């Protein structure tokens, strides 16, 4: 199974039927598979990552299991939503992060945030798993979702650039 198919299968298996996203090049492959093969998954475009987490919080309050998909650069745009809404209210979301600024990056503007992603998530108490290979992507997404919804604390599944470049 390709890594994008693994993201879709893992998200679906975890019970997520709403995906709020801000576009990203690697994630476009995920969105195409959702559109073609998962008619019961609703794709919701947000203008900004912080807004995506606000929508996700509302979806959870309404009884859904939300997934938020974004590029790692958008994690910076998300921090106030995470730290002053989702975390204190114990509103969980599965967070799928397409990494920039890690192994293989060419754009210096992507480096500082990319290198800080895991430290920032650790600092605010959000767990993270990493999809190491296409074969293990589905399982990593499912583990992240299970941690998120079982503990009611969002969890991120990181998709390294080395993986999404495949």
């Amino acid at each position, binding site marked *: 199974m390709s890594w994008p198919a693994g993201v879709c299968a893992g998200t679906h298996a975890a019970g997520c039927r709403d995906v709020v996203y801000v576009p990203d090049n690697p994630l476009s492959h995920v969105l195409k598979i959702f559109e073609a093969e998962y008619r019961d998954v609703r794709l919701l475009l947000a203008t900004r990552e912080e807004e995506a987490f*606000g929508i996700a919080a*509302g979806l959870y309050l*309404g009884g859904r299991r939300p997934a938020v998909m974004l590029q790692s650069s958008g994690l910076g745009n998300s921090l106030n939503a995470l730290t002053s809404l989702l975390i204190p209210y114990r509103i969980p979301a599965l967070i799928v992060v397409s990494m920039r600024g890690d192994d293989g990056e060419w754009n210096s503007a992507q480096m500082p945030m990319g290198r800080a992603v895991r430290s920032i998530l650790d600092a605010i108490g959000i767990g993270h798993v990493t999809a190491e290979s296409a074969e293990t992507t589905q399982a990593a997404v499912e583990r992240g979702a299970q941690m998120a919804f079982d503990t009611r604390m969002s969890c991120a599944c990181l998709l390294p650039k080395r993986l999404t470049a495949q």
Partner: protein
Amino acid sequence: MSAAEAVDGAMTRLEATRVVVAHVGDAAIVASLGHPAYDLFAAGDRPRNFYTWGSMGLASSVGVGIALARPDVPVVVLDGDGSLLMNLGSLATIGLLRPRNFVLVVMDNEQYGTTGGQRTPTSLGADLAAAAAALRVDAAATVVTPEALGAVLDGAIGAGPAVIVAKVTESAPAAKPPLDCEMLKQRFMSALGQTES
């Protein structure tokens, strides 16, 4: 007449909030942090109220999410002009997704009332209803009286999405909702018949 003069003698935010509570039945109400949330608590605490204590700008986004998750429940958001300006993209998302059960009420006091009254761009005429209309929210209106607010709300519930800009004057809040965020979440979800999954 300047925008500031137009506000003189109009309704206070608390009066406007009381109108909202009286006109929206058993709708879910999401309140932006600070004074909008304090006034909602004072105007009528109820389990279907969701008070935010942070995440400035995101009340409308939270409301959109609830509206999408529960199309059977009318959702009303009480936002501020300063808060909406922090997340203006939300208007484009509302115009994109067009949830029929969603109404955004912007309590436009033309200032950052919770932080000491610094003026917002609406004090110089920036028009948030026009912005909503430009971003495909067809039902967008500005109201300056309680009667008009009630009438527009009556027409908007279930026939949204709608954005209603209520020109209000600042009123010192007299109460605050509980600070226990998890309790607020659980109470709200229970009131909607939701269990956490």
